[in-house]
């Protein structure tokens, strides 16, 4: 406080009151701003994701023909549907897992397999912020379907298991998840998100394997 304390001790209570009021008002203001920031993280960030999802979905509808082996970072890979999480559950998967790409939707690891390919199709998605596409993937159980609508075909994977791993256990990304030394003969899918919710301590992993391929009719 810049103002010096009064000489007369009888004026102390007034001074004290003013100081306490200032501290109280500042604390309340800081608290309100923090609450607003939490609201922004949980809901505000989703607005950006929603608008980007529209663009990505439009991109998928437009370029309907042919299979793309390599997709540029930030472009649409396929449409992800998980019937167990609701009939409306569909997200456009974006290429890349950098912060910028994950803001747009679930991201595909560029080095992992493409949808339906032999190997591991690996996706990461937010669980609390940016529309939280993977918020409820912990509810997936064995034999639940994960549908990936790529440009050339619809691939239906079935969930095989779930796991919780350390953030650096990159074995889960291997062509055969968890077994980096084995060459794949099947097509797998792996979803990763943070665990527990609101924490970056661990990762929740959902594994699946390709069950059915339906080529798109032209």
């Amino acid at each position, binding site marked *: 406080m810049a103002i010096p304390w009064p000489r007369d001790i009888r004026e102390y209570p007034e001074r004290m009151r003013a100081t306490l009021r200032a501290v109280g008002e500042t604390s309340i203001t800081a608290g309100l701003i923090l609450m607003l920031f939490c609201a922004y993280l949980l809901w505000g960030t989703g607005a950006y994701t929603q608008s980007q999802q529209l663009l990505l979905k439009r991109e998928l509808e437009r370029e309907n023909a042919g299979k793309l082996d390599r997709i540029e970072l930030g472009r649409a890979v396929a449409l992800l549907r998980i019937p167990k999480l609701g009939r409306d559950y569909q997200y456009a998967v974006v290429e890349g897992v950098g912060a910028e790409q994950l803001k747009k939707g679930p991201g595909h690891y560029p080095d992992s397999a493409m949808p339906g390919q032999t190997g591991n199709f690996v996706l990461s998605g937010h669980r609390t912020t940016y529309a939280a596409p993977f918020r409820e993937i912990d509810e997936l159980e064995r034999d639940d379907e994960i549908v990936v609508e790529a440009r050339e075909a619809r691939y239906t994977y079935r969930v095989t298991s779930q796991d919780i791993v350390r953030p650096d256990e*990159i074995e889960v990304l291997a062509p055969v998840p968890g077994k980096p030394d084995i060459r794949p003969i099947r097509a797998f899918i792996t979803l990763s998100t943070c665990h527990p919710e609101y924490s970056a301590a661990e990762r929740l992993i959902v594994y699946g394997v390709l069950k059915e391929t339906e080529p798109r009719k032209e």
Partner: protein
Amino acid sequence: MYAWLWRKLPGRPRTRALTAVVLLAAVVAVLWYVVFPLLEPAVTLDEVTVEK
């Protein structure tokens, strides 16, 4: 702080109240659209990738 601000606002109580609401909205808008997006990358409560 708020009492001081209230005294500084010009006009009758009604005008003051209106000005206060507008000011509050402006502050919230600046926080929401400018400050929070800048702060957001520093919050790592939603790290989702697996990497070395």
